[in-house]
């Protein structure tokens, strides 16, 4: 049994893939509960799609996705944050406009600049193609995200639940808002090679939503969300290896499977509580 589990990692590319999968699983599922609590799922989707034109221009100029990661994420977070805060058309509408416009611009740029990127890999991820350099960048991004969330954890929880109360209390809510957007962008960009632009949302939202169904408080849901994120990404990687399936969709489907199990556990718990009362 152990031999079967360790066999894939006799290949260097699988070790690199495992590190990328684990880091994506941790960072995205750590931010998931904050994202759901602030109803920012659509925003996260917009961030993922807004990376496409930056990747197109970056690859055209000779940079890799990893090299573009940090500056691209900061740029996207600040730009989206500013537009949404200063537009008078409603947050969802502003996100929708940016989302579709950037995605369309990305495709046009790829076509016009004749950029040689595999669109399927960009959209759905290709974790097996992660290089040694990519691994270092992704690890660095993951450590930064986890460290900053740990340092500002209490402030971010306060702001996430009661943004008005946090501002009245004297917290720098503008800073906390942009900090969270940057961390979200960094995590999304760091996970693009693992799960791709379209499926990145599955590792961000599904483990957190599953955790919400089986835990009682926000704090415990964060730990459970990280656990589910790790299980989804690593088991998805195994499925991808042994069943010869695409890696990104495999991870997403494993996350969905966990959600279905949690959904039924939640239903059973509620029914048991109902009959006990």
């Amino acid at each position: 049994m152990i031999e079967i589990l360790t066999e894939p990692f006799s290949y260097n590319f699988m070790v690199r893939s495992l590190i990328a999968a684990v880091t994506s699983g941790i960072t995205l599922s750590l931010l998931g509960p904050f994202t759901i609590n602030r109803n920012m799922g659509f925003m996260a989707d917009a961030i993922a799609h807004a990376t496409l034109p930056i990747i197109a221009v970056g690859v055209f100029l000779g940079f890799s996705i990893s090299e573009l990661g940090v500056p691209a994420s900061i740029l996207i977070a600040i730009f989206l944050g500013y537009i949404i805060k200063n537009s008078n058309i409603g947050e969802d509408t502003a996100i929708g406009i940016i989302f579709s416009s950037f995605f369309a611009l990305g495709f046009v740029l790829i076509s016009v600049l004749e950029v040689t990127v595999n669109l399927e890999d960009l959209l759905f991820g290709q974790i097996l193609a992660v290089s040694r350099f990519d691994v270092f960048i992704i690890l660095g991004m993951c450590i930064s995200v986890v460290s900053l969330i740990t340092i500002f954890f209490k402030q971010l929880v306060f702001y996430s639940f009661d943004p008005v109360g946090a501002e009245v209390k004297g917290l720098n809510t503008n800073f906390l808002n942009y900090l969270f957007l940057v961390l979200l962008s960094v995590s999304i960009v760091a996970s693009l090679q693992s799960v791709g632009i379209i499926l990145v949302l599955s590792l961000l939202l599904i483990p957190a939503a599953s955790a919400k169904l089986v835990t009682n408080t926000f704090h415990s849901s964060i730990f459970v969300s990280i656990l589910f994120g790790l299980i989804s990404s690593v088991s998805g990687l195994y499925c991808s290896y042994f069943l010869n399936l695409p890696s990104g969709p495999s991870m997403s489907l494993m996350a969905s499977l966990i959600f279905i199990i949690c959904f039924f556990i939640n239903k059973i718990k509620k029914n048991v509580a109902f009959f006990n009362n």
Partner: protein
Amino acid sequence: MNVSESNQTVEKAIIVSDGCCVRLGDSSVLDDVTFSIEKGKKVAVVGPNGGGKSTLFNAITGLLPIDNGSLTIYGKKPEEVRGSISYVPQKDLLNKNFELTVKQVVEMGLIGKKTLSIFSQRKTNLKIQKSLESVGLLEKIDENINNLSGGQFQRVLIARGLAQNADILILDEAFSAVDVGAQEDIMKLLNDINLEGKTVLIATHDINNLENKFDEVLCLNRHCCAYGDPKEVLTQEVINEMYGSHNEMFRNHNIEKHTNNND
């Protein structure tokens, strides 16, 4: 009131609004609002929906800029004294997609700008326990907030304000969505807090018996219709000015007593 009495009043006043105007977009939500609230007063802010109660609170807490006139807290601009006011928002302004325990909500009152708390966790826990004891919910410290009644949740938010140890407590619609018994409990709690010398401002729609519950009333309908002792200022004219043709529902309110007092 002679000049020296007037000066003394201004000195004791901690919240002073002088012709304060607040605009939201193109419309004026508060226009030329003037009042001064002294330390230790318990003030009801009444008026119709859209009358500017929440806008005034947002201006006092520094969430909205003043368009014209001035509004000062301890002689400073509201945004300069953040932290000296504790604010209990309307219940539906909180994101509760995930759940927290009572302890975690009260602890928010102790979270500051610095990421590393100057208090040890033991001291933090003691402050949380003391605050919850004051609102009579110490036994609920580990309870999930979604399992609390509306009145209990309001008291948890008040405990958060107490943990913050601010001198001014502002409650926006504290009595909405809570039953009469819970309203009485909250009012009793606010009386106790007020007796400790804290200034309390509450937005409420219930103008009945204000004279028994509050030291002063601020009547708002986009402008200040009246401010002062409820026995003196809540006249039929002021109620008409606030609620217009909808004043019928306040028929049972003891206007005559006020009118007689004025006489």
